[in-house]
């Protein structure tokens, strides 16, 4: 769409029941050319029918010849240009267009198209209903630093010259079924040991990883410490949480020789974009939550309770091109400003 040429036709896409549907405010990246900071989109679920009316208005009663009008529904994974995913990106078609100009689509996992109207001439404004019935949506919508998952409906008027098209973005939230949730909680959580242990990294005093022992409703427990300095045991009630859940846990100080100023729990969302060998990691701290003020002595137990529902969180997701993981990070800051931390992965999911 060029601002210099006035398109001879206006396309408007209205989704059925759009007004009454839940909307989500999505912030536009600062570098994008969007007019507003945020963009409001209707929210759809997996398997929900996406239907609506595309109205094409002809300007000034001019006739517009066309080679057909088609409607597509697209689900696309977009990676930032030049990112690790570009290898895969270039091999796929250039025609895959990203909605974010800085990013390009690396995979269109969903692309359904059908004709609304055969080739002909539009003499006056005309509306075409469209309907993608019980549309399966494989991925959750996502807007990240280096990667987006976006859905849109696209109506294209095919012309000899340049096609005229209009897209209508919508947002998809995927909800886990009860069964899936149960499975999730049974799944052992892998506690990834960081390869490069810095001084501040809290190392495990013993190899035992209780959390790996799979058991239903088994809480996440971890026994960690720095020799002769700090020894704590922490425990989260579970490893998988819905986005409206409450994280409940406790920290038990077995030994504390640090002069602790305060302790906080933060929830870190890690976006990993690109294929695994050259992925770009971006961490963002979604929640920062102080749980303790002052320095405890041996034997103290500090409770953790963190309500998640008030925060904008991203559930865990992943595919070939990227994944999003969530970590709970326990950070201890001593009086000299040194930080000691320990991350453990948790799964966030969306639940109805």
């Amino acid at each position, binding site marked *: 769409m060029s601002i210099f040429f006035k398109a001879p036709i206006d396309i408007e896409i209205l989704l059925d029941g759009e007004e009454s549907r839940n909307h989500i405010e999505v912030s536009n990246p600062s570098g994008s050319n969007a007019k507003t900071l945020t963009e409001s989109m209707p929210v759809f679920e997996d398997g929900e029918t996406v239907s609506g009316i595309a109205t094409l208005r002809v300007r000034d009663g001019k006739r517009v010849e066309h080679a057909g009008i088609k409607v597509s529904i697209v689900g696309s994974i977009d990676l930032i240009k030049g990112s690790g995913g570009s290898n895969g990106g270039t091999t796929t078609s250039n025609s895959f267009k990203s909605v974010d100009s800085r990013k390009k689509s690396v995979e269109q996992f969903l692309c359904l198209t059908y004709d609304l109207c055969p080739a002909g001439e539009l003499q006056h404004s005309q509306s075409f209903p469209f309907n993608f019935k019980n549309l399966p949506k494989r991925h959750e919508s996502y807007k990240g630093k280096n990667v987006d998952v976006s859905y849109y409906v696209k109506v294209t008027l095919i012309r000899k010259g340049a096609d005229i098209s209009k897209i209508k973005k919508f947002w998809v939230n995927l909800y886990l079924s009860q069964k899936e949730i149960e499975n999730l909680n049974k799944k052992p959580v892998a506690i990834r040991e960081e390869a490069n242990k810095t001084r501040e990294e809290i190392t495990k005093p013993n190899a035992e990883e209780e959390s790996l022992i799979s058991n239903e409703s088994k809480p996440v427990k971890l026994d960690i410490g720095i020799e002769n300095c700090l020894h704590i045991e922490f425990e989260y009630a579970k490893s998988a949480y819905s986005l409206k859940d409450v994280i409940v846990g406790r920290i038990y100080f077995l030994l504390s020789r640090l002069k*602790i100023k*305060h302790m906080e729990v933060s929830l870190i969302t890690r976006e990993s974009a690109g294929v695994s060998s050259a992925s770009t990691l971006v961490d963002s701290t979604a929640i*920062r*939550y*102080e*749980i*303790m*003020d*002052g*320095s*405890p*002595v041996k034997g*103290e*137990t*500090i*409770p953790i*309770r963190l*309500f998640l529902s*008030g925060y904008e969180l991203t559930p865990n997701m992943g595919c070939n091109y990227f994944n999003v993981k969530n970590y709970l990070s326990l950070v201890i800051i001593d009086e000299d400003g040194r930080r000691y931390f320990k991350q453990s992965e948790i799964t966030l999911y969306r639940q109805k």
Partner: protein
Amino acid sequence: MVESSQNAINLIKKQSVSISKFLENDKLMESLKCYSLVLNQLRLGHLKPKQYYELYLAVFDSLSILKSYLYSNFISIDSNANKINQLQDLYELVQYSGNVLPRLYLMITVGSVILASNDESTPSRELLKDMIEMSRGIQNPTRGLFLRYYLSQMTNDYFNNNHPSTKEDLLFDLEFNFNNFTEMNKLWVRLQHQGPLRERDLRSQERIDLKILIGSQLVKLSQLIDANNWDIYNDVFLKNFLLQLIQCNDKISQEYLFDVLFQIFPLNFHLKSLNSYLKTLPDLNSSVSIDLIFKNLISKFIISKDEIEKNSLDFTMELFNFVDQFLSENKDYPIENLCSLLNSLIALNLIYKPSDFHIIDKIFNILNLRLELNPKKEKDTHLIEFLLCIGLNEYIDDKPNFYYNLIKCCGNFINVINILDNDSSLKIILPILNELCQSNKLDNIIPLNDSNDFNFLRNFLKFLNPVLSLNDFDISNPIIELLLKFINQLLFVNINIKHLRNLKQLNLKIEFILILKNWFSGNPNLIRIFYPLLITNFWKLIRYIDHLKCKIKNNENITEYCENQLKQLFKYISRCINDIFNYNDKTDIELIDLIFKLFLQTASISDQLMLNEVSYDFYSQSITLYEEYIVDSTPQFQALIYLIQSLQKTRSLYSEENYYNILILKCISHSTKLLKKNDQCRAVYYCSHLWWQTEISSIGENEELTKFDNRNGKRVLECLQRSLRVADSIMDNVLSCELMIEILNRCLYFFIPSNSNYDSTISINYINGLIELIKVNLNSLKLQESTIENNQFDSRISASSPSSRGLDIVEDCVISVDGNFIEYNKNFNKNSASLSKTNQLLQVPLSHFNRTCEYIIEQRDIDERFTMIII
């Protein structure tokens, strides 16, 4: 720091204004944002407790705006569940606060409003549990303490308005508050270990400033436990409380919390749980002043004296046993604290068992045992302080009586005094003695009527043992002064005829004096000061026995007994006098004088009892003493006069051995050997009386009726003549003249009764001759005076030794009994050698003679014979 806290308070106040405005317009969310700012001020570090407290108060005021808003908008309108749900949502909402301290303050504020809803569906317990559990997030001591104090304040209404109906409810309430208390205590203790080591004292001070916070939580606990519910107190609360106290192992905490515990819970709890307390004490931190805690406990018992039933006094014994046990296990317990412990015990016993000195004795035994471990003489100021204060206890209303009983019953107290070094023990003895002497009831306290009472005496003397080791003191030493006063009173009360009713008592009294005698014998100074006192009391007893003997004449046993006792008593006296003599400086004229008089007095008494052997013995001892130790002329003269006076009154010495003659011959012999002629002259004319008995009306003699065996006019005249010869031989003619006038007076004295049965060799002629002689001498004196202005003898006169006794004042001159002239004027100290006093000196014999003449003229009216005396 003050500045920053002041800034913070200003900010809080400013924000509070905005909050009020937002809430007026129901803009709750905006107000919460302000609160976030307000509450963040409480996160300021390094504030002094006082500053933080001011900050806390500002925050408290600010939060109360929210509280009352929530209350009036969600609770008081009508208790509808929907509103409560909104509050519960708010409770969740405030938890999104990223910082833990503001989050908790808001939670507690909202929570307290929910608790106030009084709705049955309100999950109060869960809420309480949640608030207290979440408060663990504050581990900083000061901030944590204040947060938990806030929790305590905010839940106060709930616990006051919802009295537990079941035991389970009560246990929950207790657990909640106890939990908060425990955590507060832990934080409080932790505060001690913050910051650098050198600031330890500062930390201690800060903690003391904050103690009220934790104290108030303990008070809250006490309000939950009903005064009748000792079981809960003991089984639930106290068990945990003591456990926590031991675990925290902190001096300040243990001392303070025990004190609060004693104050806030009812007395009967303490009585019943005493054993638990006492068991805990040894487990406390070693730096804890057990004595302080003990003192506080006992203060509680003392204050509540009226509440304690008299039949439940076993606790005093329990406390005693504890101290006993504790100290026997802690032999190096500081003496200062030990004294404090004992002091508390004593106070307790004085209150509850004021008449039981047995236990006080036991208390001192503890001290005694402790001091014996260390054989060297103790000089600990705390110990002395403690001993000094015993009698100062405000609960003793009769101090002398207290000390009396203390000394009588507490042998261990006395042992302690004797273990102290001398100075210290005297320091303690003095006020006690003073107190005993102050008493106006002294005689009520001290009648020793049976041998048990001797315990007091023996203990008292043992108590005074340190006095025995005093050196170089005299009667003006305050202790001696008091002791003298006391012993005097003691003797006065006991050696009193009124109290002597039978022979048994008599024996007791003798024993009593002998005990004193034995004790005084330990120090020569004491012997000198106190033996005369004892001797006079022996005299009293002697008189009494004699009286008894005369009264019961027909019982031979008693008579024999009395005679033996008398003999014995005289032996004691002799022993006493000899001790005074032997243990003291024999060149001390006053001492010798004293002994001399004691001998004479005793001799005189024995004479009155017709014990001639005894009397003779004492007279002979006195004469021996005279011969050996009285060497100066003046005392010699004095002594002889005394001897003559004493002998003149004797009645028993005329038996076959003729002791009297032996003694008076000695007496005359010594009189004639006096160095000064004037002394000699006077002594000799005094000796004349030894042949002229006079009536002693107390034994029924009468001058008119009695036939006196010993009146020998011839001997009298011999003496007077001899005396006159001596007077005549004196070169100083003024003195000589005066002496002659004195002899004239003697002659007149013996002249008067010579009209009766007795031979009088003092004839009118003799008197007339003497008068003539005197007149001649006087005339020659006048002549001398008119021709010679400056007579050389007056310088001699003014240099003679003065004595103040028996002065005849003649204008500016006096004449003393020893016959010396003493100048008597205001310029006494000036050199008087050059003054012309002859005229005045002459006046002495002249006026004396004139008075004598006047007397003779007066006597002419009564006795014709006087008309024959020519003047």
